[in-house]
């Protein structure tokens, strides 16, 4: 700074001294004196000596320095109140200085392949497909009001998957309203980006996908206990809804415990709980209000009788209750997820009514063999794939056993045993490669065996090879 001040002094001297000399030759006119006269009296003299001139220059330089200092302080102060925008592995974020207002733009794309092996009797189409194409718009308003909008363009169609707002009054009390996942199925509550396998397991057939409703939720004791309770329009098993067809509403609730979540031990990521829903559903011959169930390869393997006439169509006709006990454990490189689902639905066909109780379960295990640790929210690789650095991301082996049993009373009145299966059991295994937090590859092989579902004997086994290239931000 001293050097700067010296050179500034030289420059200013060069500029001012000739002017000062001219001023002595031709003194400038004094400004018009204000009234009264004593105010106008100029009691000071222009600098005469070199010391006085240097003093004047020194003051000018100090003023310049201070102005720069004030400008910097103003810029720093402005930065504190200026909105920020960031782009990183979590997406694009625009945020007000105090964080009260935020907009996040994220999204993901899943490009899948499905190849069916030995599909002689029930040929299925080997295909590439865009399973999910979902831009995500999330934000916060006035600190506590969040929103999320997520359309899906997967498969070439447009579906509004999520559209809700949530008020976070405190950790124990949040209110959410809109379209979102009712709190029932454990694997269904996992984000589509975090799935262990390409497709969810069979119990997901029996739980709601997305529905319109209002939910309160919260956590106690740092997450040791959490709850969700909501009122929803009500949808069929595995279904999503954008409206309702009757006045009845479903109540869905979930109570979940993570007793060691606040610690650091091997059971920190152990959780268990129970979820369920209850409501009345009623259909018509043209809109029966009943689901179809799928195989791991997303082939429809069970559906109720329906031809559009009341005598030959099975219709939802009363109470629909789901109960889903569930648990997971992620410890070290290992992960385990299990859930059991029952869906009990009153149905009628013509004059015959029945309460059908379908059941399903799954057990899925994973082992991260290198580069990370599993959690319910997927694997965060410790390194990223980088050939030059010889780092490869994370690799995970996985295996899954899952089963679906239809109520025996379903057949033959409510479903045709020649086309609808009585049960299915599937065993899957595979490898996941997490190149980084944003890119992953999944490779699955799954074989499903069926009871029934064919005119003679059983439906042909489904042997399917999946792959997925997923990119998310």
């Amino acid at each position, binding site marked *: 700074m001293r050097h700067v001040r010296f050179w500034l002094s030289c420059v200013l001297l060069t500029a001012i001294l000739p002017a000062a000399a001219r001023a002595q030759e031709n003194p400038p006119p004094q*400004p018009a004196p*204000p*009234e*009264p006269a*004593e*105010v106008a*009296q*100029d*009691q*000071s*003299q*222009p600098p005469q000596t070199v010391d006085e001139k240097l003093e004047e220059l020194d*003051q000018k330089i*100090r*003023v310049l*320095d*201070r*102005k720069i*200092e*004030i400008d910097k*302080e*103003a810029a720093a102060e402005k930065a504190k109140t200026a909105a920020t925008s960031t782009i990183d592995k979590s997406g694009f974020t625009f945020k007000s200085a*105090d964080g*009260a207002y935020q907009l996040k733009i994220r999204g993901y794309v899943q490009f899948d392949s499905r190849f069916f092996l030995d599909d002689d009797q029930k040929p299925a189409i080997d295909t590439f497909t865009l399973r999910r194409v979902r831009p995500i718009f999330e934000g916060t308003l006035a600190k506590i009001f969040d929103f999320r909008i997520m359309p899906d363009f997967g498969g070439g169609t447009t579906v509004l998957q999520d559209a809700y707002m949530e008020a976070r009054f*405190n950790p*124990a*009390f949040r209110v959410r309203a809109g379209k979102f996942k009712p709190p029932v199925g454990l694997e269904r509550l996992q984000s589509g980006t975090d799935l262990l396998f390409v497709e969810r397991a069979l119990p997901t057939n029996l739980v709601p996908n997305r529905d319109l409703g209002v939910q*309160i939720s*919260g956590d106690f004791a740092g997450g040791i206990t959490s*709850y969700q*309770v909501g*009122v929803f329009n009500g949808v069929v098993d595995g279904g999503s809804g954008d409206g309702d067809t009757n006045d009845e*509403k479903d*109540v869905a609730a979930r109570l979940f415990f993570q007793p060691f979540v606040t610690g650091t031990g091997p059971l920190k990521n152990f959780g268990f709980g129970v979820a369920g829903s209850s409501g009345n559903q009623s259909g018509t011959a043209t809109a029966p209000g009943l689901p179809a169930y799928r195989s791991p390869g997303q082939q429809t393997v069970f559906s109720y009788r329906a031809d559009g006439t009341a005598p030959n169509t099975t219709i939802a006709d009363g109470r629909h209750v789901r109960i889903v006990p569930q648990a997971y454990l992620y410890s070290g490189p290992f992960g385990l997820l299990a859930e059991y689902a029952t869906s009990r639905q009153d149905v009628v066909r013509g004059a015959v009514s029945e309460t059908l109780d379908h059941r399903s379960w799954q057990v899925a295990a994973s082992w991260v063999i290198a580069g990370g640790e599993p959690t319910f929210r997927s694997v965060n690789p410790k390194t990223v794939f980088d050939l030059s650095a010889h780092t490869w991301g994370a690799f995970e082996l996985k295996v899954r056993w899952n089963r679906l049993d239809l109520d025996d009373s379903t057949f033959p009145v409510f479903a045709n045993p020649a086309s609808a299966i009585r049960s299915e059991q599937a065993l899957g295994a595979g490898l996941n490669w997490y190149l980084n937090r944003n890119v992953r590859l999944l490779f699955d092989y799954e074989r499903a065996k069926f009871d029934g579902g064919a005119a003679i004997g059983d439906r042909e086994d489904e042997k399917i090879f999946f792959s997925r290239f997923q990119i998310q931000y």
Partner: protein
Amino acid sequence: MRIRSLVPLLVLILAAPAVAQVKLLNVSYDPTRELYQDFNGAFAKYWKGKSGQAVTVQQSHGGSGKQARSVIDGLEADVVTLALAYDVDAIANSGLIPKNWQTRLPNNSSPYTSTILFLVRKGNPKKIKDWDDLVRPGVAVISPNPKTSGGARWNYLAAWGYALKKYGSEATAKEFVSRLYKNVPILDTGARGATVTFAERGIGDVLIAWENEALLAVREMGEKGELQVVAPSVSILAEPPVSVVDKVANKHKTAAVAKAYLEYLYTPEGQEIAAKHYYRPRNEAVAAKYAKQFPQVTLFTIDQVFGGWTKAQKTHFDDGGVFDQIYGAGR
């Protein structure tokens, strides 16, 4: 749906455990840092003894107008202790404080007063004695920006009031103040910044300053004796106001402690602390005890000369007002 079954759960959720410790945010103007550092400690001790509750008071300081704007824009102040009533009025106009806020505490909610003095360099080389000396060519005057600083507005109005009283017309007062601001080379955003400019950066011949700021600067630099106070013949009576920000305090559930915090300013203990920091106490006994440290100055009020803050603000400091005319024209 069985709503009744949800009631116990809701009651459980809403009956959150009471907060054991209470926090207050006092949004204040620039030169009160030291005052409230001392006062907060004393109040915390007092409140702990009275209620058993531990209280922590956080402070925020800046130009008074800017601070008021921050509160209006969402800075969650439980109390404001600003430089002038107009800034509290602005907050009241936003709905955060009732319009009758000034009637809720004694002395128009102004627990201490101050005035405007001059701070000059050792030996007073420019022979500054009164306001007239500040408009002489060659005298560099340091004063902050009236647009952002409450103290600066007091400075401006003190000069205007002096000129009006001495020279008798609004036109000469305007000319006088215009010439004064031609002598101001830098406009800091707050009074503390102006003090830094003058005392630490060595800029200017005279600082127009809050009395407490001037006396504090002399005390701080007393060992070197580099600064000295000059009391003008006439100055303005500054009445810095205080108020609870009701909507915020109610939201934080701090209304009672916030009220007690401001009331404590009026107690002999609070007045003593104010006096030690060179604010003129309202309490007569405390004022008598500290009378010697305050120069004798003839004081006028803003109501007497300008018809109150609202009128003064509109005439002089609003966009396009007299200050914009004289400072814009002078640059």
